[in-house]
């Protein structure tokens, strides 16, 4: 009668121990990681969509994000996308989807390169192994301008239409958050803030102190810029 529902007492203790272990591990995991939610706003309080968010671990050390293979296309005399963020060590290919030739180049110190005049897809992707901002241009079509942000951050992404970006799980600790956008007027077009992640959900708002630069004009036909 000391056994309930026919379970032997030894097995009952074993099951209780397992449940305790699972609960303990859940508690430990819950204590070590949290969700980080960043909201980036303009000086007027409106959200800033499309900004690059990078999260650099200060304490504890978290390894940088793994390299990826990315694509920077050229469509209708424009780079697509106009902003790319990649971990250091990543490769980027530069297909030309236009019928006209392009001469993609960058003179940025993080990765100066010239692809020469080409159509279609150039043979070898470019390796971006140093963190920094790489500004792209086309030596034939002046209006073509794009950016590749090479980062050594542990986490990265873009703000959504409401200006937010969320990292669902990261270890508790101290982080430096950087926000970059070509439209920011701050030095280096960069906003920075340190946050200490202690609870399960951490929210931080980062606000620009200056009015944004106007975006590139989209409605002007390319044929308007022959001279």
């Amino acid at each position, binding site marked *: 009668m000391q056994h309930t529902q026919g379970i032997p007492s030894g097995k009952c203790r074993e099951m209780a121990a397992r449940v305790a272990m699972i609960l303990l591990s859940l508690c430990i995991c819950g204590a070590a990681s949290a969700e980080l939610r960043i909201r980036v706003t303009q000086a007027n309080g409106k959200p800033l969509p499309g900004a690059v968010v990078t999260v650099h671990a200060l304490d504890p050390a978290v390894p940088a994000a793994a390299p990826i293979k990315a694509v920077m296309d050229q469509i209708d005399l424009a780079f697509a996308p106009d902003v790319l963020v990649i971990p250091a060590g990543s490769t980027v290919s530069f297909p030309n989807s236009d019928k006209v*030739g392009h001469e993609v180049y960058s*003179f940025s110190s993080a990765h100066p390169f010239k692809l020469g005049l080409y159509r279609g897809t150039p043979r070898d992707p470019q390796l971006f192994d140093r963190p920094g901002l790489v500004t792209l*241009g086309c*030596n034939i079509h002046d209006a073509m301008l794009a950016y590749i942000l090479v980062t050594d951050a542990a986490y990265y992404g873009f703000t959504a239409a409401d200006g937010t970006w969320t990292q669902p799980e990261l270890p508790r600790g101290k982080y430096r958050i950087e926000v970059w956008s070509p439209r920011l007027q701050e030095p280096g077009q960069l906003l920075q803030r340190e946050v200490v992640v202690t609870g399960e959900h951490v929210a931080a708002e980062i606000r620009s102190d200056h009015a944004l630069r106007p975006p590139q*004009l989209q*409605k002007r*036909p390319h044929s*308007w810029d022959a001279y």
Partner: protein
Amino acid sequence: MVERCLLKLAATLLCAAALADARATEWDASLDMRLVAADAPTSFADGGLGVVRYGDDRNGLQLGRARLALSQELGDLLTFKLDASAWGQHDKNPVDLTEAYLQLHPYPWGDWRMRVKVGAFYAPVSLENRAAGWESPYTLSSSAMDSWVAQELRTLGAEFKLEWLGTHSGHDFDIGAAFGVYGWDEGAGTALTRSGFTITDSQGTLFGRVGRPTGVMPPVNEYHQFDNRAGTYLGLDIHYLDRVTLEALHYDNHADPAAEDVVSGDYGWQTHFDTVGLRAETDAGWTAIIQWMAGVTAVEPEDFGLLRWDFATRYVLLSRRSGRNTLSARYEDFTIRARQAFALGDQGGHAVTLAYRFEPDARWRFTLEWVRARGFQANRAIASGEPPFATMSDVQLAIRYAVSNH
């Protein structure tokens, strides 16, 4: 002689280009037909003194422009460009070149970049004629200043341009400075003092002349060299992102006003001018342009002494593009003042241009334009006995079909 050299150069470059890489040739062709309803005397382009492109003797269907343009890459850093057109009003050559030049475009170093043009091309004067073929995306007809530039000015020489690409390094501005050196431009100013400022989209050609030999006003021969002097220009352009462009140019052909061409009997026209303009664009599709030009042209024929005309013109243009529709309006005024006792060449007037453009796709373009010019022109009384004051108008419906391989 010069024409033969240029033709040989163009032919050689084209052959070299074709051999280099046939796949890298880009071509554009277009046919622009006009339905014209004019209330104006015979146009300057047909040898009269009408300031608009078509007089009422041209009412009906007209060829606006048939154009073929080639762009040939010669390796990574060199491009050859050729623009040929038929205008239906030029009597000397049914088809002729408006531009033919080589452009060297080395890669930037740091924030700096250099461009070199050699051949025949437009000086950086216009803020409205920014589209292929030196056309305006806003109106059919160019402003008075750009109509004059199109008729009489072409850089037959070289242009060096140095640019600071600030926007490529996080700044708000790009800045460029251009220096041009050229010859064969002793005729610049001739058409200005004979026909005055005009409102037209037709362009003078490299081997052509302005006007037709009707007897009222003789045609003007352009682009010949006989005083062995080089002209120069210095231009500055400042861009705030891709929103605002400020342009300034000082142009001086340094011609010898006493020089006479023993073959044609033409004199050197010493012409210099300054121009400053601003163009601003917005997200909502608005474009505003304001530009000013003032200068002097002088000639010193034997037994007449130095004859001098001061000229000035300015315009303001407002345009709104919404989807495939563009609505534009331009107001301008223009004056030419003779500085000698007789009034030959005197002109003063103003013009209004309204244009609606519909571009359903990259191939078709429809434009309806109304131009009204009002003012006096001394030459109308002196040369043909007509009243010097007149109001002229052109209504044009233009249908353009364009094809290209890119």
